[in-house]
């Protein structure tokens, strides 16, 4: 993940760690889609970006990831830069976390309701 997109940020924060844990639980979660926290984050962030929705939260919560493991495909950075060309990279970093925060809530709600998450349903919208 190129730090040029995120202003040198190194950690990922969330106010919904429990949701991350629930979704990645090997027994009750959705391990085939979200085996790791980073997979939840990426998808949640992508969902938020695709829907154009962000969930602001206090960034002083627990860190869950290192930034270097986020967006291994290198899509979020260029896309956010394209979508927010005038935002400084630090701001894009916060946007990214908020996109992800919104997205994880959506995913967790579905999981809570159905016991699973169908990523395809979000992808095919």
């Amino acid at each position, binding site marked *: 993940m190129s730090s040029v997109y995120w202003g040198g940020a190194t950690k990922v924060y969330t106010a919904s760690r429990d949701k991350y844990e629930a979704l990645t639980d090997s027994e009750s979660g959705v*391990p*085939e*889609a*979200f*085996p*790791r926290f*980073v*997979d939840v984050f*990426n*998808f949640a*962030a*992508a*969902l938020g*970006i*695709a829907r154009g929705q962000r969930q602001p939260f206090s960034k002083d919560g627990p860190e869950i990831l290192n930034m270097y493991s986020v967006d*291994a*495909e*290198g*899509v*979020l*950075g*260029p*896309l956010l*830069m*394209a*979508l927010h060309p005038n935002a400084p990279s630090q701001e894009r970093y916060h946007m990214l976390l908020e996109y992800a925060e919104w997205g994880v809530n959506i995913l967790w709600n579905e999981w809570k309701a159905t016991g699973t998450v169908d*990523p*395809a349903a*979000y*992808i095919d919208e």
Partner: protein
Amino acid sequence: MKLTSIELHNFRPYFGAVRLSFAKDEQSGLILVHGHNGYGKTSLHTAIQWALYGESGSKELHEHFNYQALKQKGAQMNVGLSFSHQGAEYRVVREARPVEFPVIKPSDVARSTVSIYRNGAQLSQGDVEAIRERIESIIPKDASQFFFFDGEQIAQYTASDRTKHAKDAIALVLGLRVARVAIDDAQEILVSVKRERNKAIAQNQAHSKLVSTQDELARQIEALSSEEHATQKRIADRKEQRRAAAVELDGLQEVEGLSKERQRLETELSVVDKARAEVVEALQKEARGLYVRMLGAKVSGAHTTAMSDLEKARDHAASSRVEQAVGQFIDQVLTTGRCICGRSVGPAESDAIRALVQPAKASAQGSQLTPEELNALAAQVHDLAKARQKCEYASQRFDELRARYADLNRQKSGLESRIAALSSQIRGVDDESVTTLHRLIDEADKEIQLSLRELGSIEARLEEATKASADLERQIAKVALASVTARAFDAQVRLLEKLIAALEQYYVQSALARKDQVAQKANHFFRQLTNKPDSYSEMFIKDDFGFGVKAKDGTMPDMNQVSAGEKQVVAFSFILGLNAYAHAEAPLMIDTPMGRLDVPHRQNLAKALAGLDQQVFLFVTDTDLGFGVDELLRGAVRREVEIVQDDSTLTSRIRELGGGNE
């Protein structure tokens, strides 16, 4: 019995063959056989008896053999009698021949053999005893003395002590033989039965010992039977247990089949799980890039926009360079007031040129990106291009994996259902149950085999004991039978004794009845024969068939004191009376009938003999026929023959008187 012919061959004085036949009318009435003493009358009489009854010994037989014939090697002696009896024609032939030659001693002549024919057919060939019985049935030997007798010996019949033999002989004549034989047989049986009874009584003592042994054997058999039954039950129980275990095992084995199926499905499930895990891992790998798929459209849009911007920027940059060069030219022209071609440019031309380029310069200066910005834009386009590629690839690969994952999930679900269904069927079955059942069956088999061997041994012992018991049973039955038999024999003994007593009584009564009949007839003859009708009122016969006379005064003189002639008269009366009631019909053959009788008695006897309607042979000498006897007999004589003898050879032959000899 009526004689129809007599044949002699080498018998006594008769050398060669001699034959005498009797026609029908000669089978009743008198037949006179004349002959001097020693000529062969008695031999003829003897021949008839020998033919019927045989010889008493070899000495007698030797004496019968004609002495001339004995000198001839291969000579034989025989006598043939033909007679009718109870409607049948019989022929008896007895013969004898020497076994050694020359014949020196009596034993050199073999015992005679006899043949009997009835209506031409030989009877009982070779069976001497049967032949003897046949002859006895016609005229018993013991009875023959009252048919064939010597007139001079007749006084023996007047013996005061009637021997049992004589009494039995009389009984035979009177047909009391049957009762006599029955009595004798019964007595013989009685002796035999008593013997058996005593034997049976002796066996009684063995009975209780055998019964005791049998009881012990019965206890053993009972014990063995119980043991057999218990063993059989044990075997049956074990077989039932085995059967139940086998049925259960079959069920388990059926379940085992299900278990194996379950195992197979579980293996298949593990393969599906493994494949699913691989797909999950693959999906997870793809999931890492899954998010890019969701941003595909946005990334594509951003890339397209960026590319457009970049193109514009590049175009703009390229135009800017041209404009810049033109601007520099224009500036140079404006500055120098001269074109590159050398032409001078006036002030008005310069103003016009300025008026043209100034707005363009102004707009160019406003939209122109810096090279760094252009590079950044280019870099962004590049990143977006890469992101776009990622998005497109992720889309395709993830779909494939999802489809595979869904399929594997369906397979897993199906397998798990089937496994669950099988598990519910084989619930409770485990290898330990199967092992236990196998062990149970093996143990049952071993015990059954052992029990079967045991059973075999018990059965063998039981069979042995049963057999021994059966043998013992037979012995006991025999012995028991003996005890029963002893009682039965005892009963038989009593019965036989009663029977014998009854038969004796019957015999005696019959004999008495017959005696009375005989006495009456004898008395009739006595009155005919006696020459002292005034002295004797009657003759009587005693119970033992001895007889006597009763005087007119009622006294009964002792027969030993009666004269020989009178005894002869009494004896003749008795015999004639006896013959009248004889059971067996036979010719009367009297040798020297007149014996010691005086003339009156002879005449009386001749009258009596002439009045008989049975066949009577009188073997007479000349003296027998004197004193008017011949005349008294003549009317009744049917046939008259004479025995003549060759003085030189002393051989006799028979000559018909008044006809040719035979």
